[in-house]
């Protein structure tokens, strides 16, 4: 029973701390984040096993962690509230070309971050070429440039009209 309680306490503590840290906490893992992650797992490991190095204990812990995660995911598909608590909601950072500076500040994202993603995804050159930028639930950023045909009907018409 101890193992299960320890597993549950650890799961919900980590869930809480990562939800409080915000979406961007570990969205893009830098070298330092990877090191941090290792240290976190190392520190939590001691509390998790509590000196009991038996196979039964480790299997029970894995079972508890995976089990509660599956259960939470299942509850998330049943209830919007649980889903929002677990996964958060997406947020528009650039809306129809307008940059929501207040939101950028809140979620600790810079214009550079958005541009970087837009460059990587669509080869976008400038911020004003981005129509929408979304901070996804995973913490990643998706950018939709203005010149993508489906984002801008005018462009798609021009493409259709242009002689091949």
């Amino acid at each position, binding site marked *: 029973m101890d193992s299960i309680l320890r597993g549950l306490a650890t799961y919900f503590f980590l869930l*809480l*701390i990562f*939800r*409080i840290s915000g979406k961007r906490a570990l969205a893009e893992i830098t070298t330092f984040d990877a090191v941090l992650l290792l240290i976190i797992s190392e520190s939590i490991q001691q509390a998790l096993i*509590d000196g009991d190095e038996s196979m039964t204990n480790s299997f029970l812990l894995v079972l508890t962690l995976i089990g509660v995660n599956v259960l939470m995911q299942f509850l998330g598909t049943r209830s919007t509230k649980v*889903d929002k608590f677990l996964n958060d*909601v997406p*947020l528009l950072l650039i809306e129809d070309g307008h940059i929501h500076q207040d939101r950028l500040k809140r979620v600790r994202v810079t214009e550079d971050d958005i541009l970087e993603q837009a460059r990587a995804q669509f080869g976008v050159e400038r911020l004003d070429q981005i*129509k929408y930028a979304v901070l996804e639930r995973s913490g990643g950023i998706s950018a939709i440039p203005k010149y993508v045909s489906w984002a801008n009907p005018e462009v798609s018409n021009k493409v259709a009209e242009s002689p091949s």
Partner: protein
Amino acid sequence: MAMERIGDIELSQDLDYQRRSWIAQRVGWIFFGLLMVAAFAGFLGAGPFSAATAGEGTPLQVQYGRFVRHRAPVEMKIAVQPGAVQGEEARISVNREYLEQVEIQNVVPEPDSVETAGDRLTYVFKVANAGEVNKLTFNFMPITIGQHEVRVGLEGGPEHTFKQMIYP
């Protein structure tokens, strides 16, 4: 999740929820900040507010930690003041109830003998010179959690009672 159309984009954005979650995040940061301050101060383990002495100014002084942690080493330092011991033995008793909550790692100096009597164990130490301060150290490892009462006494002298909180 309900999709909402914002301009040309379909997104399950929920600004109300977002705002509430930002507030919750703030509250969370403040809470964890306070927790860190409490930890620094010693409310969650070793630190200035945890270090305490029972029986100051009496023949038996006990230095202990008010807040200790499960499976983390704990020290209890006992000082027997000059003249408190008659003869060559210092007899220090600790309540059995507390000793069942901890594992005794070692006692320095090693007691000459240990006697059991009812609800307490009495550690008998040889004293070479009763005219000076005799210091003893008990090293424990808490194996349960919760608040426990500790009673430490000197035979022929005072007995001190204090509480120790063991965090998980």
